[in-house]
């Protein structure tokens, strides 16, 4: 994206390429990698905002290539979202399991409350 004004479809392609990089980072997620992906997502967001400005013009006519690129981007977004959710679920699951290992369960069958866990860890 040099000084020239990009075509709408170019913004989509740029966003797609950024998303591909984010996907690769999400496949091996660590805090550092997620921080890196955040800056890529910020750039993708900027591309989409530029695109939105262009597509708001009354003379904008989406081409089949534009529609296909937008649909691909949507699929990529869903894939990336689910991939990150999967990693988050893993950690959430472990935190719950650890809570039950340390503090047992409450009367409703849920993992022990945080206070119990802190006490358990302090004793350990």
């Amino acid at each position, binding site marked *: 994206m040099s000084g020239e004004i990009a075509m709408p479809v170019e913004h989509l392609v740029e966003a797609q390429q950024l998303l591909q990089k984010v996907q690769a980072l999400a496949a091996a997620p660590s805090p550092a990698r997620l921080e890196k992906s955040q800056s890529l997502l910020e750039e993708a967001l900027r591309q989409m905002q530029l695109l939105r400005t262009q597509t708001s013009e009354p003379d904008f006519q989406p081409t089949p290539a534009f529609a296909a690129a937008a649909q691909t981007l949507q699929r990529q977004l869903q894939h990336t979202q689910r991939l990150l959710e999967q990693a988050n679920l893993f950690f959430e699951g472990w935190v719950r399991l650890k809570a039950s290992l340390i503090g047992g369960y409450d009367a409703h069958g849920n993992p022990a409350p945080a206070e119990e866990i802190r006490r358990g860890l302090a*004793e350990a």
Partner: protein
Amino acid sequence: MSNLLTSLISTAQALGVFERALEVSQNNVANVSTPGYAAQRMLLHAAEFDPSTGLIGGVQAGEIETARNLYAEQNVRRQCESLGYYTELAHSLAAVESYFDVTGQQGIPAALSNLFQAFSAWSVEPGSLPAREQVMQRAGELADAFHQVAEGMARAATDADRQLRQTVDKINQIGQQLYEYNVARRSGGMDDAGLDTKIHAALEELSELVNISVLHQTDGSVTVLIGGQSPLVIGASLYRISVQFDLPADPPPIYAAAPAPARIVASEGRDITSLVNQGSLGGLLEMRNQVLAPLAGDAYHAGDLNLLAKAVADRINELLTNGWVSEGPPPASGVPLFTYNPASDAVVAQTLALNPAANAQNLAAISPGPPYVGNGVALQLAELAEPRRQQDMINGYSYAAFFGRLAGSVGSRLADAEAYRAFRADTTAQARELRQQLSGVSLDQEAILILQFQRAYQANAKMLSLLGELTEAVLGMIR
């Protein structure tokens, strides 16, 4: 004296624990390049100190990190199960999809279209011998097209059967390995990290084949249950599974001369097919019993392909046999154009053929009416291409549209399976990465890691949500 003894016991215990921790570290160094090796770390924590009750304090090996390793291993296995399922399903569906052309340029849709065009040309010149011969030729081509697809489905079922046998053999082989590892564990290999690695590698390989639950016993052995219920390995006992293709007595088969569904049977003879829903075995069962059977038929399904073949043949035969070849006197009735094995609705497509008694001369074009129409039957046959009457349709669809729906459903299942396979390939790689990240991390480091991860995750999720909204807005303009 008591205090001195207590102190000595405590010291000896602490030394024992530290010695054990050192062994663990050495093992980690030795196995640094071993694929699938999860670094072990001894968690040291204070034991309760209360001399009045005999609790002597000191340090003891903890269990939380072990539990975390098992949790991470289980997460990898869950992803492997799903990846195995979708990989197999996508592979099998791709082989079948080629028989369901959606362009209408080949196979059954092209043959149907050609036959209807031949009927149309015949209706223009009902007495024309070349037009009648063209009908006979196109009818034969339609029967061949049904055969080709039916044979393709039969080949896919045979391939699935062969792969089911191979997969079951492989599952039993891994079960045998795990049984041997259990025996080794019980014979003093309790703390053998190499054995631990082998057990986890075998479990991971097994999870690509079938959905399993793994229970780690206090004697170090693993119990493996298929579908969470049916034992494969318990301690030093192996319970082999098998695949069977014979017809069960209950429920009784509905369609004769059709293949039986595949069944997975436990060592004691119990049918455990319904427990197997993941891994490549789950994918193969899905393909064999839930995709191919409703399409091509089995002992319990007529099969949509057979339904179509029967509907086309019956309707064309009905119109022709209700018509006249000549006015006579006496008038000569038409003969059926198609034959098939009437003994079973599940084998119509593979047995569909031109009636040997039918020929270009005895095709009935005349509709005796009233009103009498010289080319009435030929016209009615030509109208099958774009039917208006319910008796010329299947469930409200023309024959071509009905086939199109079948083809669409196969294509859509394949696209879904491929998308899920790609996603599961990524989540499996991710699960292995997460297992590696947590391996050997202290609980303190882990707490920081999770906190940092969750903060970064929330920031990413928010950004992705904004991007999703913008993309949706762009797509909204296109729709």
